[in-house]
C-alpha cells in the first residue's frame, strides 16, 4: 500500500512539473497575411487572323476587314491602357514576290474593364484598313500577308 502511494505522488509531481513547464514557455505570435491581385489582361487566343475579301483594284474607297470572335480577359476592374503595335502603318507583302507590298493600318474597338478571369471574355475587334490609293496601284497577287504582334499594356 505504501508503495502505491509513493508512485501516485511521483506521478502527480511529474504532471505538475510538466504542466508548469508549458505554462512557463507559452507565447503568442501574430501572423499577418498580405496578398496582391495583379492587374493583368490576356487574349483568348495567341493568334488571330484577318482575311480581306478579294480586292478589285478598280474600286474606290477604303477596304476594311476585321477579326471575328477575338476576346480578352482582365482582372476584375482592370482596363487595358492600350494595345502596343496597333498604331502606325503596317505592311502586307506578297509571299511569292516580296517586293510587292501594300501598306495598311489597324484600329481596335474600345478597351473596356475586365470582369475577372472566371467571367466570359470581353469582345475586341481589330480592323485592318487598306486605302484605295494603295490597292489601286498594287500588283495583282493572291498571297499578300503580314503579321503584327499586338500587346496589351496595362
Amino acid at each position: 500500500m505504501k508503495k502505491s502511494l509513493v508512485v501516485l505522488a511521483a506521478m502527480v509531481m511529474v504532471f505538475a512539473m510538466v504542466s508548469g513547464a508549458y505554462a512557463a514557455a507559452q507565447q503568442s505570435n501574430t501572423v499577418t497575411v498580405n496578398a496582391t491581385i495583379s492587374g493583368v489582361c490576356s487574349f483568348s487566343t495567341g493568334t488571330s487572323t484577318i482575311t480581306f475579301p478579294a480586292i478589285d483594284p478598280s474600286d474606290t474607297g477604303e477596304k476594311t476587314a476585321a477579326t471575328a470572335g477575338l476576346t480578352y480577359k482582365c482582372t476584375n476592374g482592370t482596363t487595358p491602357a492600350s494595345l502596343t503595335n496597333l498604331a502606325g502603318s503596317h505592311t502586307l507583302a506578297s509571299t511569292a514576290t516580296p517586293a510587292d507590298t501594300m501598306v495598311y493600318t489597324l484600329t481596335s474597338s474600345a478597351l473596356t474593364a475586365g470582369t475577372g478571369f472566371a467571367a466570359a471574355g470581353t469582345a475586341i475587334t481589330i480592323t485592318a484598313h487598306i486605302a484605295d490609293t494603295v490597292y489601286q496601284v498594287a500588283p495583282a497577287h493572291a498571297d499578300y500577308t503580314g503579321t503584327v504582334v499586338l500587346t496589351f499594356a496595362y
Partner: protein
Amino acid sequence: VKKYLWFIAVFVATSMITGTAFAATPSGFSNTTLTVNAEVLGMCKEYQHGSFPSPLTIDPLSATDLNFLPSADELVTCANGTVYTVKVSSANGTALDQTCTSGGVSGMSLKSASWPSDTVAYTFICAGDTDGAGHFTGAGLITAKALGISIRVLAANAQTALAHADYSDTVTLTISY
C-alpha cells in the same frame, strides 16, 4: 532555436507562395499574333474608247503607205504589273482574235457598203506593246495606258482601190489577262 527556425520556415513558405503567384500571372503584357491576308485581283478595264476620224481619206495617188492616227486612242487600265494582250478582230476581214502588236495585224479589211465586193486591205497596229510581241503591262487602275492604235494602208492597196465614200470596218478589241 526552435522559434527561430519556425520563423524561417514561415518566411520561406511565404516567399515560395508569392513567387508562384507572380509566375502564374506575370504583370505587364499579353500578346496575340495577328495575321492579315489580302488578295488583289488581276483586272483590266477600258478607260477610253478608241476611234478614228470619219472618214479616213485614202489617196490613191500616194506613193507611200498611208498611216492614220486615231482621233482618240484606246486607253486601258490594268492592275499594276498585270501583263495583258490585245486581241483584234475585223468584221469585214479575216482577222479573228489576232494578237495586236507594234508590227500590226493583217487580215483587216475596209468594205464598201454599196459595193461589198470592193475592199481595201489594211493593217491595224498597237504601237504601245511593251516588247513588240503584243504584251502590255498594267500600271495600276488609276494609270491608263494607251494601246497606240493606228491604221496603215499600203500604198499598193491604196493605188488599186476603187473610189467609194462608204468604206468601213468594225474592229473589236479584246483585252486578255
